[in-house]
């Protein structure tokens, strides 16, 4: 019996109870999963309980370690080596945890996705805006994921159309699982390969003492406060906290069926994801640091493949191969999670059925949105002469500039006591969350402006 059912957590006043009637197909599958959770909880099998409930947090954090993010971390390592940015990356993942934890509470308290809540609580303008912003931004981001798959493939001599085609086909095929729990486990199994950046870093023979000193002292930082430094600061934040993460984790928490009784495990899930992703992020900086030590200029690199090629003589072919493989994984897993977040948002805003537990006939719109966005993004990447640089720039600008509304709406919803009840943000959560929102908003807006107008600060 859930804690809610035995009255530990009273239902929020504005969350309607279900009318009596037959269960929808997605309810049946979700109920089967929940039965296993309840059996594990009642028998005190805590590790199994954690295993059953872990997923959305790990996926969102490792999913955000996507192609462009890993290129940002590699650029950071190649430009500044091991120093200030190592603890900074750890800080950004702590911020990501604070933001994403709110989505776990929102999902568990309301059993509704983020787009759905915005639509219903703030009206159609913000609902359509949130959906449109997300779906458009996701489409562009998906393109950059296929660019990463393409770049990794080219390192191995695989033609673009083959690597992108296979990548797209596998992402579409993953939707055929038609079971949230299976899809989640498959994606998690793939996402763990994000940690291939760790052995790649070991091939760079890092100085453990220097790494610990960097974490303890936030130094060295060569070059001081320059536009390039500011840009990397903002790119690293953009690599950790983005709008799709908010939408995806809340929708996944709902689809998985997490309740208020599962909050502890939901937080552990998010924390574990943040730690794993931070390790992979720092490892990428460390793996690329030999480029800094050897004075290689990475500013003209066009993508992740160039990093693998440039690193080959410095960390060996095995290290470079691991780097390229991890890059392909980064793009591939992100394509799976990001396309799904678009499908969830579309279904939520348009009141269509949205769940990875649905058959194709039951979730036609849901699967169509995911499939079309994948095929469109992969197809656009393969068009000769498509302005990939301009598109990548637009992705960065959109993601950072539009973080402000996404985070503000998140904070407003997390403070909405009518739907959150006692799970609404407390004073500490608001102080931490508010500081993050203000900080990310200001830095994000500054990043957008610097990216759009590079000459503004004399860069």
């Amino acid at each position, binding site marked *: 019996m*859930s804690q*809610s*059912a035995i009255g530990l957590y009273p*239902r929020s006043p*504005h*969350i*309607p*109870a*279900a*009318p009596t009637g*037959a*269960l*929808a197909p*997605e*309810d*049946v599958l*979700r*109920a*089967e999963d*929940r*039965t296993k959770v*309840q059996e594990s909880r009642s028998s005190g099998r805590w590790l199994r309980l954690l295993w059953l409930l872990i997923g959305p947090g790990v996926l969102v954090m490792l999913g955000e370690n996507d192609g462009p993010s890993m290129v940002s971390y590699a650029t950071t390592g190649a430009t500044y080596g091991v120093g200030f940015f190592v603890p900074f990356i750890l800080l950004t993942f702590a911020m990501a945890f604070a933001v994403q934890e709110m989505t776990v509470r929102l999902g568990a308290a*309301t*059993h*509704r996705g983020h787009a*759905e*809540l915005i639509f*219903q*609580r*703030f*009206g159609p*303008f913000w609902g359509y805006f949130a959906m449109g912003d997300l779906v458009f931004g996701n489409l562009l981001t998906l393109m950059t994921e296929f660019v990463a798959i393409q770049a990794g493939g080219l390192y191995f001599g695989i033609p673009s159309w083959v690597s992108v085609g296979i990548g797209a086909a596998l992402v579409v095929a993953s939707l055929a699982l038609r079971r949230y729990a299976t899809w989640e486990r498959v994606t998690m199994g793939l996402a763990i390969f994000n940690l291939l950046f760790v052995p790649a870093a070991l091939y760079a023979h890092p100085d453990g003492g220097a790494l610990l000193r960097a974490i303890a002292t936030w130094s060295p930082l060569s070059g001081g406060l320059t536009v390039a430094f500011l840009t990397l600061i903002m790119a690293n934040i953009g690599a950790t906290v983005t709008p799709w993460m908010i939408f995806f984790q809340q929708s996944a928490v*709902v689809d998985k*069926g997490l*309740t208020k009784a599962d909050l502890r495990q939901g937080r552990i899930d998010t924390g574990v994801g943040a730690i794993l992703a931070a390790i992979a992020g720092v490892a990428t900086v460390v793996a690329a640091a030999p480029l800094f030590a050897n004075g290689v200029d990475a500013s*003209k690199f066009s993508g992740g493949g160039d990093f693998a090629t440039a690193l080959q003589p410095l960390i060996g072919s095995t290290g470079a191969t691991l780097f390229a493989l991890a890059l392909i994984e980064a793009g591939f897993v992100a394509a799976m999670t990001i396309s799904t977040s678009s499908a969830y948002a579309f279904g939520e805003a348009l*009141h269509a*059925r949205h769940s990875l537990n649905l058959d194709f006939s039951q979730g036609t719109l849901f699967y169509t949105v995911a499939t079309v966005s994948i095929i469109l993004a992969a197809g656009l990447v393969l068009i000769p002469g498509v*302005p990939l*640089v*301009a*598109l990548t*720039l*637009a992705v960065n*600008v*959109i993601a950072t*500039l*539009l973080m*402000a*509304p996404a985070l*503000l709406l998140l904070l*407003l919803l997390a403070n*909405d006591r*009518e*739907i959150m009840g006692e799970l609404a943000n407390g004073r500490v959560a608001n102080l931490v969350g508010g500081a993050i929102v203000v900080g990310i908003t200001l830095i994000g*807006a500054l990043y*957008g*402006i610097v*990216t*759009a107008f590079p000459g503004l600060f004399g860069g």
Partner: protein
Amino acid sequence: MKTDSHLASALEPSQLTAATSLALPRRELGRGLVALLVALRVYIVLAVLVVIYAFVHALLTPSS
């Protein structure tokens, strides 16, 4: 085989699709919140202009 009612007991009532398909009421917004959302709309208009400028600028700038 488990019955619907047995399975339904594994879910919270507000978790069922039949419940989540019912829309929540619109939030009543205070004056401060309305002002914040208006400011956010202005910010979005400016942000969209920056995005369009950045894209067109990057499109017209030959890559090295």
